[in-house]
């Protein structure tokens, strides 16, 4: 029998529900993705410290096990909900929908979704977010965009993290930029250091623009 049914149809339907839910409360949802160890959580904590008090904020943390990351987020004073995916290597739209029952999206603010640290699987699943942000740190290889093209091909923004370490490394920033342009010329690229604070103001400005686009 003829079927013609998309494997992601169910996920995409739920993602559309999530997007409608987020739009109803004018909440910008940002999906942060990277390999493990890129400094995503530290970058997020630093971002929350800079934004709290001015912007309503909440975080959904995705990890296979533990609530370590949600605990680190809560220490900043921002509410966080930990999703443990168990054996699953990515967040999917139903997991985000489930999180809304326990933690409402911050009205008129920003919901940060920290995906499972993995440059492969999270790229395949729309969560209903407004923006996909890929974090790549300079302690990784410059060739990450070519090795993991599915992830970078969907990025709205690429944050190059840990740039304070550049003087101590052989990392070739120009090569990374060239590879990014090859895979995703449309993406904005910003250099940041969660540790030194370098570049954080451009990242906050980017978030501000994304917020006004959905308001």
């Amino acid at each position: 029998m003829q079927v013609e049914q998309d494997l992601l149809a169910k996920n995409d339907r739920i993602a559309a529900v999530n997007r409608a839910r987020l739009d109803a409360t004018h909440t910008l949802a940002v999906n942060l993705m990277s390999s493990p160890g890129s400094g995503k959580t530290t970058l997020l904590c630093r971002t929350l410290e800079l934004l709290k008090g001015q912007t309503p904020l909440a975080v959904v943390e995705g990890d296979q096990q533990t609530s370590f990351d949600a605990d680190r987020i809560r220490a900043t004073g921002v509410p966080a909900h930990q999703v443990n995916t168990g054996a699953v290597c990515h967040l999917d739209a139903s997991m985000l929908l489930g999180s809304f029952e326990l933690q409402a999206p911050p009205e008129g603010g920003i919901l940060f979704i920290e995906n499972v640290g993995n440059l492969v699987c999270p790229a395949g699943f729309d969560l209903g977010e407004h923006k996909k942000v890929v974090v790549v740190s300079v302690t990784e290889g410059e060739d990450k965009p070519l090795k993991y093209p599915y992830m970078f091909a969907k990025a709205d923004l690429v944050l190059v993290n840990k740039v304070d370490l550049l003087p101590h490394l052989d990392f070739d920033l120009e090569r990374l930029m060239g590879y990014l342009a090859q895979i995703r010329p449309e993406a904005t690229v910003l250099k940041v250091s969660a540790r030194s604070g370098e570049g954080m103001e451009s990242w906050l400005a980017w978030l501000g623009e994304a917020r006004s686009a959905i308001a």
Partner: protein
Amino acid sequence: MHELSLAQSIVEIATSHARAEGSGRVTKVFLKIGALAHVDPGALTFAFDAVSAGTLAEGAEVIIERGAAKAFCVPCGLTIEVATHADVCPHCGVHQWMLTEGDEMRVTELEVE
């Protein structure tokens, strides 16, 4: 290994159609997987065998048809064929294209008995 989630979705699609038809078993599952779909066909078949165990789709044969990936080149205004995300347009040498076809992952047909 996100193929496990995708295989789960194939099993749900196949068994719900089989039940609706009053069939006892799914024997064949036909899939169309585009050249730039974010999935490994081998891993998908392996995952399908694992997650279909104990369902109406257990033991079903998975037949995968691969489709070419096509893109619209913005500078040229032409449709081009691409094999990887890093490909440049063969006419203008620029990487400024939008995928129009080739990332699909669909169950196209089922055989039941």
